[in-house]
């Protein structure tokens, strides 16, 4: 029980941070035509900002299920990595049902705190850690969705930019500090613009909510950057080997 309380305490700041983000999600979902209850259920059952956001665009655009599944998969691919990393940090004998409960709330922030634990992550601790963020994420969505109904169309429109600007605030600082992240961000943005505006290939963004365009842009961007790094590693190794022979 002690561990659970410790988890609650650690998770509470995440809960507070989630409220404004999910608030804007609620606003956008209602602007797109979902009702507040639907918006809230989507948040409660997904716990994923970018994934949910792309998802509602696709659902609203009437995209086929396969596009919805693949887009959700690619956008949430990072959770797979986090889940994998976390699988190394729990006791090997932890039963499947406990792992299955933990899996529900592997978000960026919860993962970050859990992976900072010095010892193995216990089930009560993670349970406490995830409780308030789930509450905050759901509550914020509900509030945003209800508030959206009270705004004028102009204000509702302007709030649509909020979530995008949060994305900007997430990607710009690391891009400023690391050149490779900057390349990744720019390449993906350019590709995404190409897929929207260049005749012929813009069919990708015309279907449904543009899921394919996001997938292809992101995968190409990440693949290009990972390959640049691979080539650099290869050259460095070759240089070192060459040096050893001299």
């Amino acid at each position, binding site marked *: 029980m002690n561990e659970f309380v410790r988890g609650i305490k650690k998770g509470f700041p995440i809960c507070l941070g989630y409220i404004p983000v999910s608030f804007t999600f609620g606003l956008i979902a209602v602007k797109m035509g979902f009702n507040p209850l639907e918006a809230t259920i989507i948040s409660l059952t997904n716990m994923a900002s970018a994934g949910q956001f792309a998802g509602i665009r696709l659902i609203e655009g009437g995209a086929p299920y396969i596009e919805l599944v693949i887009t959700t998969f690619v956008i949430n691919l990072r959770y797979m990595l986090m889940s994998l990393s976390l699988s190394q940090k729990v006791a090997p004998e932890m039963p499947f049902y406990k792992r299955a409960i933990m899996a529900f709330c592997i978000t960026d922030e919860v993962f970050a705190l859990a992976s900072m634990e010095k010892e193995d992550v216990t089930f009560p601790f993670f349970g406490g850690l995830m409780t308030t963020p789930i509450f905050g994420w759901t509550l914020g969505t509900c509030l945003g969705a209800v508030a959206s109904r009270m705004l004028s169309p102009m204000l509702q429109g302007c709030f649509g930019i909020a979530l995008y600007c949060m994305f900007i605030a997430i990607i710009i600082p690391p891009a400023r500090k690391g050149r490779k992240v900057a390349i990744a961000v720019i390449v993906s943005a350019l590709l995404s613009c190409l897929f929207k505006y260049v005749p012929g290939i813009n069919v990708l963004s015309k279907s449904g909510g543009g899921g394919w365009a996001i997938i292809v842009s992101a995968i190409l*961007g990440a693949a290009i950057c990972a390959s640049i790094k691979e080539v650099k590693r290869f050259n460095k190794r070759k240089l070192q080997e060459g040096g050893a022979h001299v």
Partner: protein
Amino acid sequence: MLIMALTTYLIRLIPIGFVRTKLDNEWVRDFLFYIPFCVLSAMTFPDVLYSTTPAGATTPHFVSAAIATMVAIVMAWKDRGLVRVALVAVLVAVLVELLLPVIF
């Protein structure tokens, strides 16, 4: 909605539920490291330019979106927090929307 929730959950469940080996391919690790940045970037650009357009409007409201986006980029560059960047951008967009009809 159900399909989206299931996909999101399975992605998280499968590794922690079943996998017990370590990733050792460096290219795959780098690729997964870059994916979040690339996804967010591809989702944001160019769609952010259409984001201030009210539902049902016939022409996109590019001007307010573009000015607000530039303000957001500058603020993000200066390491301002998420919520501050978003709120200021919304405020800028509202101001532009209010001022545009006055100017033209």
